[in-house]
């Protein structure tokens, strides 16, 4: 994990983001495995949470496919939205640039601020957002998958403002916590891997802490390929607690019956209702004088279904809205974080 120098100002921070947060497309080494890349945003606003994802994938022998995922969760715990693929004639994801156009949806990075317009074809949901980075970005080293690898560039905390329209209802907000990352690599959906990943942000942006927990394993979850808790404080990368320092225990089983599954056609393709989503995840990280304990409690979920690359099965990515509560001490500072979280689980079905 590398972090930016702490003394960076807004312009330097923007330059740093532009250097790392851009489309790789054909520039990712390796030829045999499909190239996957996405730019992902999570916003926790009063009355509505948003998951927005601009993505592209290409097998070496096929033309690329690009899609937009737009999911909105209202305060009653109901998820709406869809995953929409767009013809390449309506897509622009220029290599080396942050920006993207996928149909009528747009991502821009201007004057150090992410500007998003995300809209579904039927116009049922539309979001117009400005997200200002509140932390320095971090770039992970290559994460091994089976087969392949992935890289990950994260801006763990942003301040979001904007407006979301769901049907005829409009929700405007300012000062909402948000998260952004970009992932790219060569791997197979449906490969011999599974993951649990969570981001937890404080409900009150005055709280200095942001936190990501992840573990990647083989599909059977017997062997861990990577495991870590990443901690940011006051916008600075603060600490990673690695593999052996970390215990992650799942308990309970969250039923998926009635959960939204997107794209909608995947309810026909993969009608199974076994979600393999826990009710709760307990985390203990302990290394030297640093110790963090906490829990992530699942409230509700949406499932994104991705066709496997090499077989006719499906990978189900469950995005669970959760509530996180962590406390401890890291590098001499007392950590307390209570707020919204997204827990993401990747499970391949044969």
């Amino acid at each position: 994990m590398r972090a930016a120098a702490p003394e960076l100002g807004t312009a330097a921070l923007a330059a740093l983001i532009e250097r790392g947060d851009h489309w790789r497309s054909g520039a990712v080494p390796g030829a045999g495995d499909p190239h996957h890349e996405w730019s992902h945003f999570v916003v926790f606003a009063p009355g509505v949470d948003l998951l927005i994802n601009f993505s592209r994938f290409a097998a070496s022998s096929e033309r690329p496919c690009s899609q937009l995922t737009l999911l909105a969760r209202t305060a009653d715990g109901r998820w709406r939205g869809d995953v929409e693929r767009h013809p390449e004639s309506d897509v622009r994801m220029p290599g080396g640039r942050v920006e993207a156009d996928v149909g009528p949806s747009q991502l821009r990075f201007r004057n150090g601020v992410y500007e998003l317009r995300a809209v579904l074809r039927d116009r049922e949901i539309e979001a117009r957002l400005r997200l200002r980075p509140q932390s320095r970005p971090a770039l992970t080293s290559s994460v091994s998958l089976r087969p392949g690898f992935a890289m990950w560039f994260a801006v763990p905390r942003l301040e979001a403002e904007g407006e979301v329209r769901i049907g005829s209802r409009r929700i405007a907000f300012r000062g909402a916590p948000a998260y952004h990352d970009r992932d790219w690599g060569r791997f197979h959906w449906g490969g011999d891997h599974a993951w649990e990943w969570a981001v937890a942000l404080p409900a009150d942006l005055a709280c200095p802490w942001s936190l990501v927990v992840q573990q990647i394993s083989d599909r059977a979850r017997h062997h861990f390929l990577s495991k870590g808790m990443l901690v940011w404080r006051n916008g600075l990368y603060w600490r990673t607690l690695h593999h052996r320092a970390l215990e992650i225990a799942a308990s309970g089983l969250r039923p998926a019956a009635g959960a939204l599954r997107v794209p909608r056609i995947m309810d026909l393709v993969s009608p199974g209702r076994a979600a393999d989503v826990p009710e709760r995840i307990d985390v203990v990280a302990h290394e030297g004088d640093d110790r963090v304990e906490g829990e992530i409690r699942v409230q509700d979920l949406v499932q994104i279904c991705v066709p496997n690359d090499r077989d006719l099965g499906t990978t189900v990515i469950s995005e669970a809205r959760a509530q996180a509560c962590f406390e401890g001490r890291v590098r001499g500072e007392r950590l307390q974080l209570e707020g919204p979280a997204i827990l993401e689980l990747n499970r391949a079905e044969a």
Partner: protein
Amino acid sequence: MPRREFRDFLARSLELLAAESPQAYAQLARALDALPLALEVDGAAMRLVFEQGHHAVCDAAPAPVLLRTSRPAILDLVDGRVTLIAALRTERLWLQGKPKSLVRFDAALRAYLAGAVRSPSFQPLLADYRRRGRDANAA
């Protein structure tokens, strides 16, 4: 006069599947090998036949499996507004055949759908099927 939209859609979609999702097409062909399907959609009857790994959409004739449905029911299924079980229970989708044949039909349907979501050209084809249906209703 019975509509041809579904017959055109089916024929084109199978050609796309063969070209863009050969693995799914081969699985579909295996499931329906020597098991013709009689299809009735919006009153238009046709027969789907697979022989030696290749398909043909033919004129109507009796077959071991009969599927009867409508364009609105198909689109409600595709858009997740109704589940397959609910469509069968409410007879928006009518399926008739011996249990062994229906099991093979189920495997065929899953292979067809798995191929459809992997074929880049399927979405515009489906959009065209929606549009032609709307145009026919408006006429």
